[in-house]
């Protein structure tokens, strides 16, 4: 056990898998010599060679298509899309191919690929380097989507994703890379895909979140409890698809109040799905309206600092939402 940054935990997970299994390979833009634009894959080409850490041409559909073909023929590819914002050219490969291979081949084909990609705001990346479009992928049957923020979770989920026989979109919050630190087990650590984590225990109100907004939610819960007392539970979803409905329902049945917080925009987001699950299965337990706090429905995060601030939901916004819901 050692304390590591989120980015170090992910790099460790990759190196450990490559050490243990020759089938694991990496492909993406700048992942080799440069070690990735955020340097997640730094040093891996030196250790494992340019055959297993492939600097690909600048073509996202190529990266995913090659990963699918390699996966169908014995490899366990980990593809990197440099920013989640750059993934649309690969959508055909992800949506029409990776997500459907098993189904349309009646189970003849596995598609054990991982698509690692940094997402989210917080580094002033503006429109094309800040998006949280995870709901696009959770809508597609056949894809798994995870978004760990705790370093140990990131390493454990990455290991699970690499060995998962189905395609996994592995979302890495770019602001979290060097700002989130935690204890990370050394070897053989896995976290099951599809299981949430109770990040903070409580009994009066449940916050359901993931990614950097989980950090803001924890800070908001601390601030609220310090001032008003009471007890707030915070769930870190970690996996967005499959979604851990049991953990969500168990918590909401206990607290009677649910606040869903995410960085992605509101309409058609994960929050709507969670709200529907709660409404369908825990209606009689509710003491207040299921509440969502999410980014505004504008095309992308704007650049100028005041505009960016208008887009972002921080711990003060979350705290205000807690106060309103707690008082209901």
């Amino acid at each position, binding site marked *: 056990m050692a304390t590591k940054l989120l980015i170090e935990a992910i790099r460790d997970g990759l190196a450990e898998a490559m050490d243990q299994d020759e089938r694991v390979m990496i492909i993406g833009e700048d992942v080799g010599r440069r070690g990735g634009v955020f340097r997640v894959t730094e040093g891996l080409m030196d250790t494992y060679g340019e055959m297993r850490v492939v600097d690909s041409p600048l073509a996202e*559909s190529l990266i995913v*298509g090659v990963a699918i*073909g*390699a996966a*169908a*023929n014995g*490899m366990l590819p980990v593809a990197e899309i440099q920013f989640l914002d750059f993934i649309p050219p690969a959508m055909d490969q992800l949506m029409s*191919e990776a997500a459907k291979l098993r189904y349309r*081949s009646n189970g003849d084909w596995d598609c054990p690929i991982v698509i690692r990609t940094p997402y989210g705001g917080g580094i002033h990346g503006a429109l094309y380097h800040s998006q949280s479009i995870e709901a696009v992928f959770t809508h597609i*049957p056949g894809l798994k989507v995870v978004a760990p923020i705790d370093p140990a979770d990131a390493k454990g989920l990455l290991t699970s994703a690499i060995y998962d026989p189905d395609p996994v979109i592995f979302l890495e919050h770019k602001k979290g890379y060097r700002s989130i630190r935690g204890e990370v087990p050394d070897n053989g650590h896995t976290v099951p895909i599809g299981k949430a984590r109770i990040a903070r225990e409580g009994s009066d109100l449940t916050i359901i979140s993931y990614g950097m907004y989980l950090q803001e939610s924890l800070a908001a819960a601390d601030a609220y409890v310090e001032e008003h007392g009471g007890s707030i539970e915070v769930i870190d979803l970690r996996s967005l698809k499959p979604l851990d409905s049991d953990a969500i329902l168990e918590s909401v049945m206990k607290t009677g109040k649910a606040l869903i917080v995410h960085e992605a925009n509101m309409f058609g987001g994960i929050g709507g799905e969670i709200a529907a699950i709660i409404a369908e299965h825990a209606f009689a337990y509710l003491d207040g309206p299921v509440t969502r706090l999410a980014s505004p429905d504008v095309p992308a995060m704007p650049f100028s600092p005041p505009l960016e601030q208008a887009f972002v939901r921080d711990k003060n916004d979350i705290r205000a939402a807690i106060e309103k819901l707690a008082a209901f």
Partner: protein
Amino acid sequence: MQTETHAGADLNLDTLLSLYRGMLSIRKIEEALVRLYQLGHIPGACHTYIGQEAIATGVCAHLRQDDVVFSTHRGHGHAVAKGVPPEEVIGELLGRMTGCSRGRGGSMHLFSPEVGLMGTTGIVGPNLLQSTGAALSFQLLRLDRVSVCFFGDGAVNNGAFHEAINMAAIWDLPVLFVCENNMYATEVPFAYATRNTDVVARAASYGVASQDVDGNDVVAVFNASAQAVDHVRGGRGPYLVECRTYRTRPHAEGMRDVGYRTQDEVSQWKQRDPIAALRTALYNDAMATEEQLSAIEERVTATVDAARETAESSPFPDPSTATSHIFSE
């Protein structure tokens, strides 16, 4: 414009008869599918390979079972040539349990990894990228297997072609690109869709070895593929073969085949039928008798008839399985 198959040039009779049998099997299966479509027994699309049989047959003759083929929406011929049994192809189009994907995919989703058929596909382009990925895995795992991608002239104008051939070139990947240039992307002429209709020139511009052949001459395709597969398997990088050919049926069964090509053009290409050309060559070179070739035809017909009967008597899948195989179970 003449297809003249020179049978006796350098191939022995067994090989020639095997090519004849291979092309005829595809033809008879496609003709059975056309009839089944016309009777309303195929509940969806059916793109036949009639006229292009020499290509799948000539290329796949050089492949081992552990080599892989990535196919197109016009892929029945590739499936058959790679070894998918006829009843599995016909059954799949009928949506039956005997289909190679148990009726789940239909015409454009024939899968049979056990014989190296990595799938026909309803979307033009993705297979080029996946075949390149398969080749990358063979290189990484140090296997002497070959990845083959069939695609049409339409795919050549898709970004996937350029991304794949470029990647294959820089890594010297063991992939054989087989362009079946049948002159139309659905109904848009290749010459209308691009300024340079020379696909071989595009390969050269990426530094990839290539040659073009008469795609209706099975001996020419066989010989070109021998060289191409040898090049690829020998670790000398990718190779592209452009086969100039023609589909004599409409783009898909049930489509009116008018307005974009003339009956005269279709008739001229029917004169270049690859199966008739080989048959004529075998007579002319006095290598086979009418009786021998008719006996082969009778056997192929009987096999396809039996396959059709098996497929037609096979049950439909259980509706409750519609939600299975979404994730691993």
